[in-house]
């Protein structure tokens, strides 16, 4: 499984990426939306994008729309530290899966395989 992780909290993104990699999941992580878009434009493909909802500049919702157009096969999970019902509804409507921060690694891994059941588990 190959994941695109985008979160402006640099330490959070790098720690989470390391923990996923230890579990056999390949991760490319970025701290802003434009870098992630550039990566996909350069021909890299991912099974799932894990996106923070609120980021400076372009947030996760807008990023998802752009990535959807570029890579229609990609699936999405939103992460957020916001806990409002509006955020929750937006997240659910946009991506089907929404995980609040702080998250449990096992919940994320379980969600990854629910979102992309076709990807074989290691």
């Amino acid at each position, binding site marked *: 499984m190959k994941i695109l992780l985008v979160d402006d909290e640099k330490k959070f993104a790098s720690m989470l990426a*390391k*923990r996923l990699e230890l579990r056999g999941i390949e991760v490319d992580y970025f701290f802003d939306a434009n870098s992630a878009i550039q990566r996909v434009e350069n021909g890299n493909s991912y099974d799932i994008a894990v996106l923070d909802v609120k*980021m400076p500049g372009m947030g996760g919702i807008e990023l998802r729309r752009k990535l959807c157009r570029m890579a229609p096969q990609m699936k999405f999970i939103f992460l957020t530290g916001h806990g409002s019902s509006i955020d929750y509804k937006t997240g659910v409507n946009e991506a089907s899966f929404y995980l609040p921060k702080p998250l449990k690694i096992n919940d994320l891994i379980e969600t990854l395989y629910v979102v992309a059941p076709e990807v074989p588990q290691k």
Partner: protein
Amino acid sequence: MKKSTDLLKYESLAFFGKVNASISHELKNIMAIISETAGLLSDMADMASTENPVSPESLKSYTGSVIEEIQRGFNTIRQMNRFSHSVDTPITEVNLIEMIDLVIQLTGYLSFAGKAHVHNCGDSKPFVKTCPFLLQAVIYQALVNQFKNGGPGMETTVSVCSQDQSIWRVIFSDIEQDSAHVFPDDNTKDMAEAIGVKIICTANRLELDIPSSIETVS
């Protein structure tokens, strides 16, 4: 205060809620980093063996990261505490520089925030007798407007200058008023009017005239 309507109370409560939501978001981010770092240390411990020990450098780096985040959490809670106590006394004397500094830190939790600095143009400390909560709300909205117009990379200076003995002028630099984010909105106008603050806002100028004492406001 000139105006104390239910609407004003609701606007104040909405502002209080907005700031608290942004602080709780910051705290969740801090907790998320601590949680992931502790999780990674736990993963490393699980995988460690005599042949494959955990390196002291990694341990030092990750525990250092946790300590930094705990410090960040303490700073955030300190600001939350200062903000919460701004409703303790309806009318009191406040130092404008200290208040603007707190507002800058509070707006810093917003995802679109740029950087801001406060500058005292004079030698004397700018004390005003006002409703600190409402004044904070007006300055906060002005700064939010700045950041929305300027984007996340913007840097701005908020200067406090004495106009005469009865007025302190707060000047926001590098104004570019975008028609999509027009300031002030009706809520901010109501709050400013309630404490006698005059908002001067044009395409390239944003200033707040704050009376030295709310008791002089008719």
